[in-house]
């Protein structure tokens, strides 16, 4: 029994999950109806559904980010790619004669995703072929990307009136928000493709020891390009959801600072920034923790000006709990407890 407990505690997802549960508990106390999910107009409604829906863009980006970080890299450009994809889609819809038709929206989405793929290849090219450090390489697009989005929108906030497009952000299918479904599909595809093939092992191997991987015949270069491209692709999907949700492309604010939330989700999920072993499930938990945190701020009634500080406090707590030093200290504490319990038994 205690051995099982020890294994559960030692699991790298233990503390993130505990944190998520604690946040749920706080919400439940502040708002007893927190777990209630009702069906209204054939749609699921409730705080949990809100968390999933609002957290979907961050989660989608964090999935791409997980793979990038596993290769020892980082992708700072995802927020800018969000803005570009939103701007591209909106400007195409606005420019067409039939903004409300399904085919227009399909073309707009396809072009936005295609452009994101190109941007991802650019990032991958800089990192893998030119050999620029990932943080610098993606910083280029992070700063330049918003400028590109600005050029596309010509400095305006593009507001579109296109029901099919709006459906992407706020629609429902079988009662479930479309954004949640998209996130689920991206997660499932990423998990299946990396774990059911050898891709995941190669990504980890390159992240841990690039030269040894090269000598073992792993095509590290191609792998890096693929990973950065996937990250940009994820960012574009998230950007479309965010833009569709407000039905407006804002080059300055769409996906602003979302790269930081995504990186945070990955780190909370237990994937090391030093590369190597990664966990997509961990990233899922991390993204949920972040979104629940934002929700908690509202339900508990923390003044909005204190939101950032509150968030920082929670993140600090999770990081402390996950650090090797804390793990060591906790281990010692448990052993002392066990010794004391043993003595108790011996005495009785």
């Amino acid at each position, binding site marked *: 029994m205690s051995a099982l407990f020890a294994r559960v505690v030692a699991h790298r997802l233990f503390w993130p999950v505990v944190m998520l549960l604690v946040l749920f508990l706080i919400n439940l106390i502040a708002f007893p109806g927190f777990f209630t999910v009702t069906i209204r107009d054939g749609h699921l409604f409730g705080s949990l559904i809100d968390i999933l829906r609002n957290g979907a863009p961050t989660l989608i980006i964090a999935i791409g980010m997980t793979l990038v970080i596993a290769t020892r890299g980082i992708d700072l450009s995802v927020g800018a790619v969000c803005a570009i994809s939103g701007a591209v889609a909106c400007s195409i819809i606005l420019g067409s004669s039939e903004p409300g038709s399904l085919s227009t929206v399909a073309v707009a989405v396809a072009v936005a995703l295609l452009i994101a793929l190109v941007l991802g290849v650019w990032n991958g090219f800089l990192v893998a072929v030119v050999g620029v450090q990932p943080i610098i390489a993606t910083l280029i697009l992070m700063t330049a990307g918003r400028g590109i989005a600005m050029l596309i929108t010509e400095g305006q906030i593009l507001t579109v009136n296109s029901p099919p497009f709006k459906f992407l952000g706020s629609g429902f299918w079988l009662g479930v928000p479309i954004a949640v479904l998209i996130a689920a599909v991206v997660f499932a595809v990423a998990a299946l493709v990396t774990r059911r093939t*050898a891709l995941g*092992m190669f990504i980890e191997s390159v992240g*841990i*020891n690039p*030269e040894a991987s090269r*000598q*073992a015949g792993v095509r590290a270069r191609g792998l890096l390009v693929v990973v950065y491209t996937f990250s940009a692709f994820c960012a574009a999907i998230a950007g479309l959801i965010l833009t569709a949700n407000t039905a407006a492309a804002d080059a300055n604010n769409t996906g602003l600072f979302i790269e930081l939330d995504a990186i945070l989700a990955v780190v909370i999920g237990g994937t090391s920034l030093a590369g*190597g072993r990664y966990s997509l499930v961990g990233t899922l938990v991390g993204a949920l923790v972040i979104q629940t945190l934002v929700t908690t701020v509202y339900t508990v009634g923390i003044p909005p000006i204190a939101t950032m500080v509150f968030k920082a406090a929670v993140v600090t707590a999770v990081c402390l709990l996950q650090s090797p030093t804390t793990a060591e200290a906790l281990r010692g504490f448990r052993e002392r407890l066990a010794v004391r319990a043993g003595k108790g038994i011996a005495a009785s």
Partner: protein
Amino acid sequence: MPRTRTPYSQNRVGPGGRIRRRMPRDRPADDSMESTVTNHTDPPTAVVEMRGISITFPGVKALDDVDFRMFPGEVHSLMGENGAGKSTLIKALTGVYGIDAGTITLAGDQVSFSGPAQAQAAGISTVYQEVHLLPNLSVAENIMLGREPRRFGSIDWRAMRRRSAQLLAGLNLDIDPGSLLGDHSLAVQQLIAIARAIDVQAKVLILDEPTSSLDTDEVAELFRVIRSLKEQGVAILFVSHFLDQVYEICDRLTVLRNGKLVGEYLTEELLRIDLVQKMIGKELTTLDDLEQRARSVVVDESDASNFVNAARLGRRGAINPADLPIAVGEVVGLAGLLGSGRTELARLLGGIDRADSGELTIRGKATKLRTPRQAISNRIAFSSENRRDEGIVGDLTVRDNIVLALQADRGWFRPIPKKRQDELTQSYIQALHIRPGNPDALVRNLSGGNQQKVLLARWLAIAPGLLILDEPTRGIDIGAKAEIQKLVFNLAENGMSVLFISAELEEVLRLSHRVVVLRDRHVVADLENDGLTVDALLALIADGSVEADDADAASGTSGARDAVLGASETSDPLTIDNVPGGRR
């Protein structure tokens, strides 16, 4: 039970004879207890006393109830194969690892270090095998780093130079303290590291493989320093794979095997052959039969049978154009000093570096190798000499490390089924005796020898036609070495070609059908291994002329057993990196 009470002096044991370590607990000592057990009380002077030390890593029991002690003014050697627990014990003593059980006593006080800095402050200094200094700082800064003499709150640079100059003079080193550390050879850096360690008023000085990059003169220099420190009453722990050096300098030996204590012995009372037996725990299987078989393989001389043929293959700045044919089932040895081009030539064949001149023919087809991947798909495997940086993927499991190259060759889209992976892993764990035999253990937790075996397994898994082994036996112990040599042998008999690089000429001669000698990035000789001697090879390596001295012809290759024992009968350890004057 007869008890001889032997007067105990610090450095020597009197004529009373055998001293066996008084065991604090009953433990099964699998070497038969030597007849007379001297039940002397532990001299109160032991400066280090470790008792019942156990350390467990995930999946590995690195140390199991080990006792160890050191006396002032004595050179003590820790002996054991790779994975026996030597490094772990040292790291336990120096506070790098916490211990799971046991006690450590330093000069009578029980201590528990939470880091190397604490251990150092308590007087335990360590010089590691790999120099842990800062090449971009000056020699003086390196020696005094972290304890710079201060004046008015800022560093007193003049005092710092003076003090380091004194220390260097004490080691008879003529080095400008103001010069950059990185400008000196590795050997000199090693001596500077020792100077640094001595400055920390050390009671205990630990030297972990200090001689692995030193030549004979430098070793003599180091030993002079060790002896003078010994006279000052410093307890010195000397760890080395070179038995000659151990027997030359050490007073006392502690032998570990598989994380357990085998025993503590006085050097002068333990025959080398007994020591080796205790280290590997079994009768040393002689390699004599290899010796005979090596000559018997008939190699077809015609070009058609060549697995690879390099014609004027070269790369600017690395290796001048060289010819190197390798027949199917042939073992070709590359001999030469470090930097002679032996590794560089092998890297061209393995596709690690691109050749910029010459032609390479593989199985009769002209081929250009641009990446390691292409080499692998041509069934050429290159096992790098740099195990840590270019070999293992430390945070992956043993299983992942073994299947990595095979999987890379198949491509990411065709994963090897889990069941097949497990079969492969299990079969190699058994065939190569990989310890621990747990496929899910992380490779970084394995010892050097076992990591090397995992790498061998990785390359064997792709069923190579040509296996390039660059220093596969470096830094690993006799037992694993013999296993790897045997393996190379059997592989060649089954039709695999092998290109074998080793600094140990004995090893090259024992295994190779042909030996190619390199010097200054040129191939200087390509010889059938028929009556070749170490001396002849040395002559070639040194100045390129074959000295056909028939009188010596027999001596070099005689007695494989001696060779395995580190050439115990010969005064010089026969590694070419130790050739006097051979280093550049």
